[in-house]
């Protein structure tokens, strides 16, 4: 169930040098985004703080020569779900090297700004692994505001929200209020309509950025490698992958109860509860299965799964279960190509990921990194139900 514990072969200093070397070589630069995949072996057996330092350094290296479409999704992911000051500052700075500033980026920046404003702190982006011991350096709020100013009139969609943010009673120092005013001015200038746009609640990534992947029936990977895996549900009942996922479409999300980022696992499971309500309302409550599978099966025992699900409104019965892999978590990880890594058996970093499986238990659609839309997931599952009927 657990990965064999082994020493990380590369020191953080060596890692930073490797990233710098790749960034300096025009023929290798395109490989940098691959270093942001959570399941990269470089992140095996590292603590969460080390991973923050490492990923931040990769983001900053990418910023030095310009963000590609392949790298953009990682930046948007950070802005969409990140809570770490250093990573948010690095992502905001990196975004300014994207060659096509568009309005679709602004809501991501604005949401990050609202999230971090009460937890702003000085960060150093120039040297690997250094922490600020004075406030003379930059901060995520400062970087995010600079990025909104860089977007200029492209960010007018979030102007009303930014003005509300400016008007809030606390949260901003006098210096930062001046920065907000500058940002508002930069967004207004050159904006011919002068009209503030809508809020940032419903952001979709710009064209060219893929957070949803779908496969037609004949291109789906076989579920055979995981069919016999034993899973245990929130009541302690054992069931194989095949027994639960074959015979009807299923919606599967991944999470773990010790995740300390409220924008990830807790929200994901809460959204799964909303998905269940939508299915129920549309008459599919018993025809489409849902499940939340933990990344951390050694710790997330049935009682923990049940309480975590109950607290977030998840309905649990024969068709809808909170699950843990009893025997081969690694096989599950390989099958779904999960964006997760571990230190011992504990998760050290993961992405957001939701899957819709067809009646054969094969992955038909994958929603990753950016917050998924519940209705979109439900619609896709219903499509798969119809696919089997047609």
């Amino acid at each position, binding site marked *: 169930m657990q990965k064999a*514990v082994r020493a990380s072969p590369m020191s953080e200093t060596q890692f930073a040098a490797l990233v710098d070397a790749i960034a300096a070589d025009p023929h290798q630069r395109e490989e940098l985004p691959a270093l942001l995949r959570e399941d990269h072996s470089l992140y095996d057996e590292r603590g*969460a703080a080390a991973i923050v330092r490492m990923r931040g350094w990769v983001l900053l290296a990418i910023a030095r020569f310009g963000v590609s479409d392949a790298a953009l999704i990682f930046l948007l992911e950070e802005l969409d779900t990140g809570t770490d000051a250093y990573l948010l500052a690095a992502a905001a700075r990196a975004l300014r090297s994207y060659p096509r500033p568009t309005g679709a980026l602004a809501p991501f920046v604005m949401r990050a700004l609202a999230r971090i404003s*009460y*937890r702003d702190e000085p960060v150093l982006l120039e040297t690997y692994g250094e*922490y600020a*011991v004075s406030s003379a350096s930059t901060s995520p709020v400062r970087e995010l505001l600079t990025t909104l100013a860089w977007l200029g009139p492209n960010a007018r969609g979030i102007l009303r929200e930014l003005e509300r943010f400016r008007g809030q009673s*606390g949260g901003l120092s006098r210096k930062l209020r001046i920065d907000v005013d500058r940002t508002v001015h930069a967004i207004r200038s050159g904006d011919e309509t002068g009209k503030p746009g809508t809020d940032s609640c419903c952001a979709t990534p710009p064209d060219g950025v893929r957070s949803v992947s779908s496969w037609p029936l004949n291109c789906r990977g076989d579920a055979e490698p995981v069919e016999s895996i034993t899973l245990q549900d929130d009541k302690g009942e054992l069931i194989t992958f095949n027994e639960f996922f074959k015979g009807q479409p299923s919606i599967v999300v991944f999470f773990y109860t010790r995740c*300390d980022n409220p924008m990830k696992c807790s929200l994901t499971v809460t959204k799964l509860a909303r998905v269940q309500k939508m299915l129920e309302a549309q008459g599919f409550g018993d025809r489409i299965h849902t499940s939340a599978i933990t990344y951390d099966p050694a710790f997330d*025992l049935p009682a923990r799964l049940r309480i975590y699900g109950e607290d977030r409104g998840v309905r649990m019965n024969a068709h809808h279960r909170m699950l843990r892999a009893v025997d081969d978590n690694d096989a599950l990880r390989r099958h779904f190509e999960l964006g997760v890594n571990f*230190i011992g058996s504990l998760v050290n970093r993961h992405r957001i990921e939701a899957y819709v499986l067809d009646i054969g238990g094969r992955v038909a659609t994958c929603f990753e990194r950016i917050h998924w839309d519940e209705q979109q997931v439900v619609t896709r599952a219903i499509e798969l139900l119809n696919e089997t009927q047609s």
Partner: protein
Amino acid sequence: MATKRKAAKRSKSAKKRGASSQVLARRAVSIATNEQKSAKQRVAALAEAPLAAFGNDKDLAAVLSVLRNKDEPIAVRLGALESLQAASFSADVFAPYRGDYLATLRKVVDDPDPELRQRALGVLMRDKDGFAQQKLLDGLKNPDKALVPPEKALQLLSYDVHAEAYSVARDIVKTPPNDEARREALRLLAADASSAPMFEKLLRDKKELREIRQISASALNALNPEKLQKHAREILLDRSDYDDIKATSLTALAQFGDDESLGKDKALLESVDRLSAGKAPSKYKQSARRFLKKYDR
């Protein structure tokens, strides 16, 4: 009309209160930062300063500077830290100053005063600060660099389950610098699923310190409750084990066990009966009697 007047009056007096608390805060800060005043007066001013109400960069900068300044009396610096900590609870008011506060705390983690070091690291670790985490881990791996005793470092690292502390804690369990450090290392490992087999061994080892066996029982309850139930039963059946460990086992069975199977377990009920009638301290006997009563014995 009368209601309107009352509301206006209320709002006026609230404003007055706000203004007066700011005046008080400013006065307190000016005493607290005045080197001519005695340390006692300054500490008292810091304790009374309603820092949550202060609303300007200068006051905060002055208090932060007291905290940073190694030439200031340590009691005043600790008082400054306490005031700032209290103020930080008002997240809305404190948010603009949070960055300066964290930077200052990082600055003082290697202060010559051990209490200040420990408290600054404590505040930072409650915030899951990567800088503090790195310092604590460095100190555990290399005692020459340690800013706090190992047992304290482990305690602080346990605030963040994602700190890479498990492997260091395992090393400390194997070769502990002292008993306290070993105990704290075990407490930290109580959240590490892969440590469950070690806790089973410790729980069953009669030569082990009782406190360690009790920590192990609690850890097993979190990591592998079924195993704890099994061992708890065996401990209760073992006539040669200690009464306090038996009492811990009894609690585990009573609180988390399966009532139906426990009620039918004759051997277990007899051993609990022996505990209730034997020479064990009365508090253990009482637990045993409560347990038996639950199953109509």
